[in-house]
């Protein structure tokens, strides 16, 4: 797993991205234990002074101390690097814009794309690092033709390949994922064996910058966002108002809870029309969609696949991939599912798999409508 492109017998120089969580800490520690020359970096993404402190959040002052503690224990240098500007511009702002436009953003992919595999990869040369290591559960390999492949982790429960779909193809040649062949219990066991104080830290579930999961509150209180917070109409399939909503920011396609609507059958959010400030609701059957179109796609292959390629598509991070056919594949993609899929939410990623390999992915632009 540890490549030394220079083959001079000296230790591989690694830049390790460390969020302060168990995974990235153990990943860095394992490489140090195997003799790599590791430099740890924690990106400071957010002004911690004002963010809520939660043990489940990975981007707090405590988390930075935890990352530093791993570096101290393993005896390698560690730095904190201010990436607030890039984070705000490339992750937070698109996150807000998406919500305001009635979409359901997936900021983790943008953070991976711009911060970890953008900013950090460019930082490798500054310290002479040959590879970047992160704690993601995914695998990278190279086939006999020289083509790099991003693959799912061996542990399907932890697989994070979905969140990596926007990383640049060229970066695959420069990254290692030490946890890609491990399961979580093994990772914690390594952390304990190496005497890392963070080995039993709770897992983070929510977005690192919104540890309590209240995205709308975060946007309004911390960022002064006013778009998407205006009350408006719930409408049914025929466009009739069936109730009042609290602002489109609070809703996502497929949502059933918290709508405050009563009817003969449960109602779901079917679509969000930001221009009309309307949230369309309907019964479960109307959630299904035969396919989708994406915005621009990031291909993790040297050439985009041919139209007609059979793929499996994952439309949100814990979605069971659905068999589908790529009808068009280039700068953007259109896919048709073998079976209709529920809750195709614009803004989430559509990620294309061929077996374990990630072919690429892009934000969902729109769900295709069933043929009349």
């Amino acid at each position: 797993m540890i490549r030394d492109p220079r083959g001079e017998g000296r230790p591989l120089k690694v830049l390790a991205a460390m969020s302060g969580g168990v995974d990235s800490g153990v990943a860095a520690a394992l490489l140090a234990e195997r003799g790599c020359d590791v430099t740890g970096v924690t990106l400071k993404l957010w002004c911690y002074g004002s963010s809520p402190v939660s043990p489940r959040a990975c981007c707090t002052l405590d988390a930075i101390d935890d990352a530093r503690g791993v570096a101290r224990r393993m005896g390698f240098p560690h730095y904190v690097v201010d990436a607030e500007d890039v984070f705000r511009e490339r992750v937070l702002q698109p996150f807000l814009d998406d919500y305001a436009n009635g979409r359901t953003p997936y900021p983790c992919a943008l953070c991976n794309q711009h911060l970890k595999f953008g900013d950090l990869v460019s930082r490798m040369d500054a310290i002479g690092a040959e590879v970047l290591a992160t704690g993601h559960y995914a695998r990278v390999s190279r086939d006999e033709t020289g083509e790099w492949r991003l693959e799912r982790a061996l542990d399907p429960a932890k697989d994070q390949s979905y969140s990596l779909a926007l990383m640049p193809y060229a970066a695959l040649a420069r990254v290692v994922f030490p946890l890609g062949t491990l399961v979580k219990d093994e990772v914690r066991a390594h952390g304990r064996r190496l005497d890392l104080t963070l080995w039993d830290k709770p897992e983070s579930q929510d977005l690192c910058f919104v540890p309590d999961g209240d995205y709308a509150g975060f946007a309004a209180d911390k960022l002064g966002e006013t778009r998407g917070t205006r009350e408006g109409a719930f409408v049914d399939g025929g466009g009739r108002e069936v109730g009042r909503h609290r602002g489109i920011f609070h809703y996502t396609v497929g949502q059933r809870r918290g709508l405050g609507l009563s009817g003969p059958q449960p109602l779901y959010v079917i679509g969000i029309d930001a221009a009309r400030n309307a949230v369309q609701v309907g019964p479960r059957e109307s959630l299904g969609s035969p396919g989708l179109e994406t915005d621009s796609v990031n291909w993790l292959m040297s050439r985009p696949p041919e139209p007609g390629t059979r793929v499996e598509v994952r439309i949100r991070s814990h979605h069971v991939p659905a068999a589908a056919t790529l009808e068009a594949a280039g700068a953007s993609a259109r896919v048709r599912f073998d079976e209709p899929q529920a809750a195709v939410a614009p803004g989430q990623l559509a990620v294309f798999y061929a077996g374990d390999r990630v072919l690429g992915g892009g934000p969902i632009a729109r769900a295709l409508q069933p043929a009349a």
Partner: protein
Amino acid sequence: MIYLDHNASTPVRPEVREAMDAALGDLHANPSSLHREGQRARAAIERAREQIAALVGARPDEVAFASGGTEGDHAGLVGLAWAAESRGRRVAISAVEHHAVHGAGDVLHRLGYTIEHLAVDGEGRVLTDAIAALPADTTVVALMLANNETGVIEPVAAAAAAAHARGARLHCDAVQAAGKVPVDMASLGADTLVISAHKLGGPKGVGALIVRRDTPWEPLFRGSGHERGRRGGTENLAGIVGFGIAAELAMRDLAAESVRLAGLRDRLEAALRRAAPDAVIHGAAAPRLPNTTNVSIPGARSDHLLMALDARGIAVSAGAACASGAVEPSPVLSAMGVPRALAVCALRFSLGRTTTAADVERAGAGLTEAIHAARAVTAPAGARP
């Protein structure tokens, strides 16, 4: 490793280590004890007190030992303010003071005092004319002797004269200046002055507050009669012994060492300008410490450059760090009017007793490489592969 961060802390001198080792091994009694063993311990402290007094042109009985610069600044500023409380509850602090002085100001603010800030010019020198215009209830002015980030030497004597002319006292943080340039309390006109051992070849965790005789001042740490009632707490004996030796050696070497360091500093700055012709040296037109260079390399953010230099075995400082350890634009440079884009590129090189000409030579070569690497990182995201 080429260590160019002597303003943060400088190696302990071998003679200091020997003296401290001897003190730890031999002087176990409490210096306040009345028996002969206690008296031997007391004698060691009093010897050090004389050495410190000599370094700053004070009398030994004006020297009170403390835990370091931060405590000294708190005791000095707060103690002067308390003693003058009947005349007002306002103090003035220069905008370029060390965090320790701003921290002492926060304590006073918490107690209901008003804190004024004194502006500096583009070279970082405080505008002393503003002292005369301070509100009438201002009782203390705080101005450092040499700035820790830029090395710029402040017009302390002029500030003290202006403060005294209106009945205010002057507190001077001389932590970064002591041992690098002559410090003389009398000619400075300071009423209280602070120095720290680890900036001049002594150990960490010990410093001194010097309070001029007849200056109204109240202690911060009370409860026992240590240090003639000026600082409660059993003395850090070994540290104080080491501090004394370090002060004596620093004074002995000061004239020759400051000439040698200024020469090396000039060579380093020449190398910097060769590596980056657009480099901006902050405070370059003002009188500065002989060992300090604060420079911005446009387009090379200091956190990137610090990592790149560290990877090449060159240790420097990136100025201020926030609670997380991330580098932030320095408030000192902001006060000098340095634009943010330039301030986030500032690095401090500070030379010291162990710095050699070969170090400076090698640092110059490493710099060229590191600047190139850091600029590549700093380039806008869109330009990246």
